């Protein structure tokens, strides 16, 4: 992958709250994987989980 392409693309992690369905997008950090426990939901306080990891442009 060229350096320029790497700059334009970023890997994001989507966390979802299993209770209220709220989704949160954050930057990928090493060790993240789909299904792992995430942060705490700001709305209901439940434990979120990583639903998706993908690359997006911009």
């Amino acid at each position, binding site marked *: *992958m060229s350096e320029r392409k790497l700059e334009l693309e970023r890997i994001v992690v989507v966390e979802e709250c299993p209770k209220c369905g709220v989704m949160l997008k954050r930057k990928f950090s090493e060790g993240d*994987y*789909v299904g792992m426990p995430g942060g705490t939901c700001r709305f209901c306080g439940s434990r979120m989980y990583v639903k*998706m990891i*993908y*690359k997006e442009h911009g």
Partner: protein
Amino acid sequence: MPLGLAISTSTYAYLAYYLILPIAYIALLTVYGTKIQFWFMMSDVSKALLELRRIRDKSLDKLNHHIETTVNDPVNRARLLGMLEYFAVSPVDLDPVGIISKLKHIVEVHDNRMKTEIADILGRKDPILVGRTLGHVSAAAALNYLYKLVNHIVSLTKRYSSLALLQQLYAIMPLLIKQGKAVLEFIDAVDKGVPIGDGIGPLSVGLLMRGKPKIMIAEDTMAAITTIDGRRLVLIKAEGPASNLGKLDDAVRKTRLLFGKVSAIVTIDAMLRLESEKSGETARGLGVAIGGIGVERFRVEETATKEGIPLYAITVKESYMEAISIMGRKIAEAVVDVYNMLHRILEEKTEEDATVIVVGVGNTLGIGQ
């Protein structure tokens, strides 16, 4: 005779421009046309070969960097580099009876040998590190072989001045470069432990498995039970989040033995799209959607045929490049469509209280369960 001279000069010029030069031009092209074509094509192919070498060298640099950070012993480092030339000979197929079991045996021995050798070199059995190293070695070996093969054909072409050989290479060279770049991207994904496009099957099934009790049903393969629309679903996928493909055929056979009557087998996999199709589009069909050399597909088909179990497939379309590089947004979001299709299959094709096997096919890198 100034006027006569003028007429005579213009006549010669006319002859030169409209008769002699075109004849010379045609004669030149007739004799040297193929030579000129050969030179131009060879120049382009040589440039592409250099690009392929650059891609190969980049993968070797990445492998060397990975070795430097994970292996301390110089002897073991050399052993790991020696695995680039590791190969498997396909079984004799003159008598095709029993070829599938022979193929399965060779593939299993090859995979086990690679994994145990790498674990031995690393001095650790951590599946994530072993999977990452295996990914590095496999990608570098594939690019190394690709470069050597193309270089071999270019050398033959030069030696025998074969335009026919060169034309074939010229036609496929852009595709080979594209494939080489895709393999480089696969190394990036393996390094970071991020899901790749091929992981859409395990992603769909892995999310359904979340929070459910799981068992290891076959080597590197996990299973869980859930209930959807009143049907009992046995979910199967390779064990993640390490880079793994699992033994899906063994898992399906064992599930059949453990759960008795199975009403349907649904496979979810990525499918190579045509240029006119869009990435992330989903399609529904019949049969077993498992790629590769066909061993797993054959064994699942065999089980289903013996028992009369209907086979359904859900596929997500993507290009070869997308399948082996970091998963794109459109592909990841296709999970919603996959679930809608699964609901439709369950409602239309199975009765309530039925047992259905759902298999997530593909590399489960970066996808847990």
